[in-house]
């Protein structure tokens, strides 16, 4: 594929890894690899689609900006891979090798076991048992390690988890089988033990794979927003520095439409700043020379120079991060359903095994025979189906949600999500889109000519309002008018000539709120107001929440008037002017009253609340902090992701409970048999695989869970 690009690697080859979040299909991969391959000096480019990265091998002379430009020219935004985000450790990988060993040994031992069950006798049986032991014991030791270590760490903390009964059962069964093999016994349990490990590892690997995939998605989003700033160098040049390298005293040049990477003080220029991400306040704040501006705020109007006063740990952002650190208790205290089940299950199983042993001893079966029956109970009750019951259901549900653009960070998020009975919604950016959109009624009223002129003008500017206007008009099928002598004057607007008439898109002389004025010489000016709008489908989504028995309310940091307006249009209860601490307290109050709270928010100011709530969801447009703190991230504009996620989580938990019932029901049948001493390795193997298949089949019903 990269053959034409391969050249002699004479110059010292270097490797650069670029993050390209926009790749998602085969043709993207081909474009990126060919585009980079065409850059002189590049010897090879290889895309990793899962990680949304491309690894470029090139001569030392090729620089990073050249590669980024080459990708930019074919329409892909890219960034060098950040150090702190360097390839997160995969959770699946360490499980793959044990899984393969367990599968290999299980199949081969099973083959030998089938011969024994078919009636192999005497020396042949002994030989087959010895072969099984030779394969089985090392395989069990190797493949069982994930369980043994986890069980050991649980026991040393004086708690128990699912892995404790598994480890005890596996160890005892292996020991018994070895003893039987040495003493020419009739039955060895290597096959059943390996099958158990195989099923459990498969469940574990599915669970880990789900976490890996969701994390890869969220990481790709995080990388997209690598913050940084253009810094004025002492020589008067401009240099782009990542946020980490900014130090107080530097001067940043901030174009309109950019976000501040550090706290600072304006040295030249004046502009309005949108602080909604930081405080929730929707009205832009005017800042002049000498005024302080905060990291994370968006420059709306004019380019300004800002002297850095605090960076990194000193910023307001870092303060919010500290609040968040202190507020994860609810979540760390949450015990996953599988572990809760095993807390009941393990003592019950061990009691049954002990009773069996005692019973047979009293009945006079002898030490060896009693031990065999007791271990048969342990093996038959080993939570094979239980180990699959939770992960398979969650993996299927998460896959269904991911297809709908909802990324779930881990399985416990779904479990917590299913218990939710209250939703607190942030206003700006969550309930609303969080960006100014032109008033639809005014756009409808614009004559075709005027709309064409407006689109022509707006498309010449990178100002956020112009871009929003251009997007809205283009979306209505307007074609841009042909303009000449286009000029953009920073902070004033764009002017041009259209059919010999002067036209302009400029800041209005006087307007309440955000607006832009469209001038066409000889006609009265049009005033186009901009406002943040509710997300599409917000009313339907809120109604569906009500149908699910979940009570939504607004919790916003914005001013009371703006919150009241949204509260009126949605009919929700609302609390405005809430600081990050207030939001945390509001959640704590609800939790104290026995409610399970879902926090939906996007801003930095929501971070502590997202971390404190029982479950949390953030839109893909949220701040880094919001996306990192939230359990679920939804892409796209629609708010229907929230009720969809809740109902999918509930259906998942319903299926998980059904799985538990089936797994336990199977035990109710099998345990009496085992206690009576009627279970042979054959029966154990058949029962184990049947119950696992039933649980998997039941979980597959969740494929359509995200409707």
């Amino acid at each position, binding site marked *: 594929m990269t053959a034409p690009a391969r050249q002699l690697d004479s110059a010292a080859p270097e490797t650069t890894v670029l993050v390209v979040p926009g790749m998602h299909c085969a043709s993207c991969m081909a474009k990126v690899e060919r585009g980079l391959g065409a850059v002189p000096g590049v010897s090879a480019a290889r895309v990793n689609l899962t990680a949304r990265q491309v690894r470029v091998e090139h001569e030392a002379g090729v620089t990073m900006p050249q590669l980024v430009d080459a990708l930019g020219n074919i329409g892909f935004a890219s960034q060098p891979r950040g150090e702190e985000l360097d390839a997160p450790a995969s959770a699946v990988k360490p499980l793959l090798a044990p899984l393969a060993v367990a599968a290999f040994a299980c199949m081969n031992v099973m083959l030998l076991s089938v011969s024994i069950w078919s009636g192999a006798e005497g020396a*042949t049986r002994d030989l087959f048992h010895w072969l099984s032991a030779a394969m089985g014991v090392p395989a069990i030791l190797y493949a069982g390690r994930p369980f043994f270590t986890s069980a050991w760490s649980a026991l040393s903390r004086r708690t128990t988890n699912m892995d404790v009964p598994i480890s005890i059962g596996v160890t005892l069964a292996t020991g018994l089988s070895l003893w039987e093999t040495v003493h020419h016994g009739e039955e060895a349990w290597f096959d059943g033990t390996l099958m158990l490990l195989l099923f459990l590892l498969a469940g574990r690997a599915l669970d880990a794979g789900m976490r890996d995939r969701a994390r890869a998605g969220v990481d790709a989003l995080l990388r997209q927003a690598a913050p940084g700033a253009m810094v004025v160098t002492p020589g008067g040049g401009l240099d782009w520095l990542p946020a980490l390298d900014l130090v107080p005293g530097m001067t940043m040049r901030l174009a309109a439409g950019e976000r501040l990477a550090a706290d600072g003080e304006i040295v030249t220029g004046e502009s309005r700043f949108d602080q909604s991400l930081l405080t929730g306040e929707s009205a832009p704040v005017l800042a002049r020379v000498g005024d302080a501006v905060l990291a994370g705020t968006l420059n709306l109007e004019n380019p300004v120079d800002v002297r850095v006063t605090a960076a990194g740990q000193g910023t307001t952002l870092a303060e919010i991060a500290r609040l968040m650190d202190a507020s994860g208790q609810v979540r760390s205290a949450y015990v996953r359903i599988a572990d809760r089940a095993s807390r009941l299950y393990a003592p019950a199983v061990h009691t049954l095994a002990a009773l069996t042993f005692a019973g047979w001893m009293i009945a006079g079966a002898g030490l060896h025979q009693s031990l065999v029956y007791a271990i048969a109970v342990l093996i038959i009750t080993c939570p094979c189906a239980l180990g699959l019951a939770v992960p398979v259901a969650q993996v299927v549900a998460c896959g269904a949600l991911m297809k709908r653009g909802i990324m779930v960070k881990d399985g416990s998020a779904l479990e917590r999500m299913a218990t939710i009975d209250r939703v607190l919604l942030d206003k700006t950016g969550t309930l609303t889109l969080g960006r100014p959109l032109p008033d639809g009624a005014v756009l409808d009223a614009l004559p075709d000519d005027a709309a064409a002129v407006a689109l022509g003008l707006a498309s010449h500017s990178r100002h956020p309002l112009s871009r929003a206007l251009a997007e809205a008009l283009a979306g209505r099928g307007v074609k841009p008018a042909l303009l000449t002598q286009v000029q953009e004057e920073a902070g004033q607007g764009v002017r041009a000539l259209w059919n010999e008439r002067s036209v302009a898109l400029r800041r209005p002389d006087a307007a309440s709120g955000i607006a832009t004025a469209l001038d066409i010489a000889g006609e009265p000016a049009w005033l186009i107001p901009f406002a943040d709008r509710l997300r599409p489908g917000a009313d339907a989504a809120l109604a569906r929440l009500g149908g699910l028995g979940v009570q939504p309310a607004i919790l916003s940091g914005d001013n009371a008037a703006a919150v009241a307006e949204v509260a009126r249009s949605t009919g929700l209860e609302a609390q405005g002017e809430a600081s990050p601490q207030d939001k945390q307290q509001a959640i704590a109050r609800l939790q104290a009253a026995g409610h399970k709270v879902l926090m939906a928010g996007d801003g930095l100011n929501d971070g502590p609340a997202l971390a404190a709530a029982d479950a949390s969801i953030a839109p893909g447009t949220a701040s880094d902090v919001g996306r990192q703190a939230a359990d679920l991230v939804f892409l796209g504009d629609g708010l229907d992701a929230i009720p969809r996620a809740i109902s999918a989580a509930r259906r998942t938990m319903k299926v998980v409970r059904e799985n538990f019932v089936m797994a336990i029901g199977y035990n109710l049948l099998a345990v009496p048999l085992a206690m009576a001493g009627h279970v042979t390795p054959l029966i154990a193997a058949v029962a184990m695989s049947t119950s696992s298949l039933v649980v998997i089949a039941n979980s597959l019903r969740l494929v359509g869970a995200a409707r």
Partner: protein
Amino acid sequence: MNGLAILIPVALGLGGLGLVAFFWALKRGQFEDLDGAAARILIDDEEEPRA
């Protein structure tokens, strides 16, 4: 019985070969990019001028 003496080592050897092949693939990074591998088959090899 004599047949078994040959067949069992052969069966185990073949299975072991599969296991070794899997470990080799794991080490070589064949499982690093499953999504990419799935998509890569759709890429056309010819350099089309207007692709």
